[in-house]
């Protein structure tokens, strides 16, 4: 998922999850465990003020595709499955939510059968029905949700529904009388359980309007309810009074109401939390470098760096000049100084040139083809390659988000392109519009900022960004518009591998990532460390820092 986009994927089964997440790197200051797990003990009551650096792209669950959106949705719109409310590796495990139990998988991995729990109700009191599931998936496809290719690429009949050739998805059958739901896939997909654990697959009542309901989100099933939305300013996530710890085992009731405010200035955001005027700093933001030492000195007991399985990169549109040229792309990879970008991020990046980050199966362990990312770049080589490509002097527009430090990354990158010999200029646009803008294929953005945080511990989650089958006209995530036959043939096989057998294909994923680096479809530069930073009103150790969703609001509790 991107920084502001949260894609939620199904978590692999326990064994693979343990191996994948156990390999997460850590720094001397990091706290991988973050303390806490969801329990029914501890104090409760009051409201926690959570600051977000960027407003969620949507508060409509079938449209949202940002980390900010998913943070609110995964506790307000449960689907058939969700994730454990735990730190680290344990948090990556899928658990049944609205489904009674794990699915029965038959037909060579292509048929999933599960039964809906009985007696569930939406936040408005409407009874939950099995047929709400196919409606929810149809709504997500029609929205269109930015990750709809997860559905259209795997669920039988979903593509026909998407293109208007069918009125419903033939591969999903739901029996309201028995609560049984059956999903047929076109091909096995090892991470399919993660797919239906996305918040976008969170149930909404059949008949919910298809349009954008961000300003007045529909009812959902979960320990929290979204309300009082002021677009781009604030919204509330309040406890569902009818939810108990027993409603869905493993999904506890919340302890505090949440008041979310958008604070686009990270300096102000950090100062508010430092001075206890707000309670939670957006884990997706970085502390301004100037405040980092103050925070460590004054608030060391309520601050910790958390490693994330993420990749920050600049996309290179392979369908337009100049980056439809291999040498031009490789030149950029030689020219970018990854240490410099790490400094712009206050030292909170681990420089890298690989797409799959450390901590994920498939992360290459060999030398970077463009030189040591912790050393100076090779600008001479970059200029030579660009000259050989014949594209020196090409005009390039570099797209970036408005908030720091992403704006600074983009400004630095533009300068590098100009130093190489391009005629580059920056186009910085507002955060909330950024990904929808560059995800519109009509625009054909040449290059710009992008990032990805793992949705689930499976390399296939990252590689959907390089999969031509996920390219879509709007809300596109394959910003480089990669269409590589070798990648496609590898993904066709690797994506089918069940999550508990990921170890057996680790070498193939690694080779694929090395191939990607050679092809230079993107310019990877960093793996993020994120802050868990609270006010002194909250019990820091009790709060879960979830490997997918960051601060787990349902585990916030007052001291």
């Amino acid at each position, binding site marked *: 998922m991107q920084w502001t986009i949260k894609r939620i994927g199904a978590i692999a089964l326990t064994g693979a999850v343990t191996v994948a997440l156990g390999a997460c790197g850590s720094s001397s200051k990091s706290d991988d465990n973050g303390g806490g797990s969801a329990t029914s003990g501890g104090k409760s009551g009051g409201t926690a003020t959570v600051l977000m650096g960027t407003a969620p792209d949507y508060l409509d669950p079938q449209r949202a595709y940002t980390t900010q959106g998913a943070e609110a949705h995964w506790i307000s719109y449960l689907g058939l499955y969700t994730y454990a409310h735990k730190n680290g590796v344990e948090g990556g495990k899928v658990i049944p939510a609205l489904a009674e139990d794990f699915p029965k998988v038959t037909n060579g991995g292509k048929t999933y059968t599960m039964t809906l729990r009985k007696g569930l109700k939406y936040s408005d009191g409407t009874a939950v029905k099995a047929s709400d599931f196919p409606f929810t998936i149809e709504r997500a496809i029609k929205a269109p949700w930015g990750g709809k290719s997860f559905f259209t690429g795997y669920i039988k009949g979903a593509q026909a529904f998407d293109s208007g050739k069918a009125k419903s998805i033939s591969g999903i059958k739901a029996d309201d009388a028995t609560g049984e739901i059956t999903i047929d896939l076109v091909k096995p997909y090892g991470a399919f359980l993660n797919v239906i654990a996305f918040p976008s697959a969170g149930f909404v009542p059949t008949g919910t309007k298809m349009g954008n309901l961000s300003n007045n989100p529909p009812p959902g099933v979960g320990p929290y309810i979204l309300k009082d939305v002021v677009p781009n300013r604030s919204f509330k996530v309040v406890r569902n009074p009818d939810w108990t710890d027993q409603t869905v085992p493993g999904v506890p009731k919340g302890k505090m109401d949440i008041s979310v405010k958008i604070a686009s*200035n*990270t*300096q102000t955001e950090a100062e508010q939390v430092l001075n206890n005027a707000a309670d939670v700093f957006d884990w997706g933001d970085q502390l*301004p*470098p*100037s*405040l*980092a*030492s*103050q925070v460590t000195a004054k608030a060391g007991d309520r601050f910790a760096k958390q490693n994330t399985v993420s990749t920050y990169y600049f996309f290179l549109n392979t369908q337009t000049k100049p980056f439809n040229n291999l040498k031009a792309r490789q030149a950029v990879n030689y020219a970018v*100084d990854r*240490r*410099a*970008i*790490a*400094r*712009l*991020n*206050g*030292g909170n990046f681990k420089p890298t040139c690989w797409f799959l980050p450390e901590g994920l199966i498939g992360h290459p362990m060999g030398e970077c083809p463009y030189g040591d990312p912790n050393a*100076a770049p090779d600008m001479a080589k970059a200029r030579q390659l660009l000259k050989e490509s014949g594209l020196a002097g090409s005009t390039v527009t570099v797209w*970036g988000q*408005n908030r*720091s*430090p992403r*704006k*600074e990354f*983009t*400004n*630095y990158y*533009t*300068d*590098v392109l*100009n*130093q190489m010999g391009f005629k580059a*200029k*920056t*186009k*910085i*646009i*507002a955060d909330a519009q950024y990904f929808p*803008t560059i995800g519109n294929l009509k625009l054909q953005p040449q290059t710009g900022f992008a990032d990805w945080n793992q949705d689930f511990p499976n390399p296939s989650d990252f590689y959907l960004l390089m999969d031509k089958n996920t390219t879509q006209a709007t809300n596109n995530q394959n910003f480089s518009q990669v269409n590589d036959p070798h990648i496609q043939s590898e993904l066709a096989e690797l994506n089918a591998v069940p999550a508990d057998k990921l170890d057996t294909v680790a070498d193939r994923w690694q080779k694929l990532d090395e191939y990607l680096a050679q092809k230079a479809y993107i310019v990877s530069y960093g793996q993020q460390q994120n802050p868990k930073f609270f006010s002194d009103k909250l019990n820091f150790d009790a709060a879960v820092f979830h490997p997918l969703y960051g601060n787990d609001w349902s585990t916030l509790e007052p001291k």
Partner: protein
Amino acid sequence: MATTDTGTEVPSAISAARPDDDAPPGIGPYALAWRRLKRNRAALFFGGVFALIVVLCLLAPFYAKHVAHTGPNANHLTDQVRVGGKLKDVVTPGGIPIGPTWHGRFLLGADGNGRDVAVRLLYGGRNSLEIGVVATLITMLLATMIGLAAGFFRGLTDAILSRVLDLIWSFPVVILGVALGVALAVGGLNLGLFELKGNSLGVPAVIIGVVYIPYVAKPIRGQVLGLREREFVDAARVQGLGNVRIMIGEVLPNLASTIIVFIPLIIANAILLEAGLSYLGAGVQDPNPSWGTMISDGIRLIPSAIHLTFVPGFMLLFTVLGINVFGDGVRDALDPRAKVRIER
């Protein structure tokens, strides 16, 4: 009873004490104004400050090439510079930029991207001044035309133009500027005859120029309403001159003082508004520098690099102060009512 050089009657006691008694006889009104301005030391001093800032900004390319040896957008994140015999990181691994070194390279320090603050200050000044001047030209040209037409023709023309001015005037200037700036930042401005790209300096210049039109057009309209009733206008009509010739040949010259007085004031306000819009991200677009964007970029580093906000802030302060005080002096020199106040 004596009259002033603009025809307004003033009491003899006051006129007897006029400070321009030593003026040569037959001196023209502008020459007289110049004499008065030369005696206003404060106005001259601050006018000099402003002129100095303008000259420095114009010399930005020279400074960048021969003194700082870097451009306004060049990043030096991993470079080192010698300060007091020791090598220091331009930007530390933790992201803190170096402060003023007080010699050629990074004279006033570096910003978060490792860019030379002094170079960006001068280039930013060029941008800010260019936008201020262009916006002022747009304002004065359009406001004069609109005010002249509204005041001269009256009736339906005046009604329509005045309502348009009221509409623009009803929006708070900053909010209107931000709204237009954000809307035009991506797609730019395409008016058929000419096109401005989203990151062009012309976009904020046009926006600022348009929002200030009512502030000038309305006083001009008021003055024209009075002037059109004067006998020299009647005489021109009797001679058979058309409306346009009367407006341009007879009325417009009498507006010259008003226009001249407005120019420095609008430049000052335009520069301030540009800084505000750029601070809010709706003015000059990255990575082009302006004092407003420099202040905005420096906010997140205030605790460790306060020079990033102070330096452009002080430049803005002295520039606007300089124009304002000089503009006050020009007004005092030209405005007869101001002359009477001085005499008391």
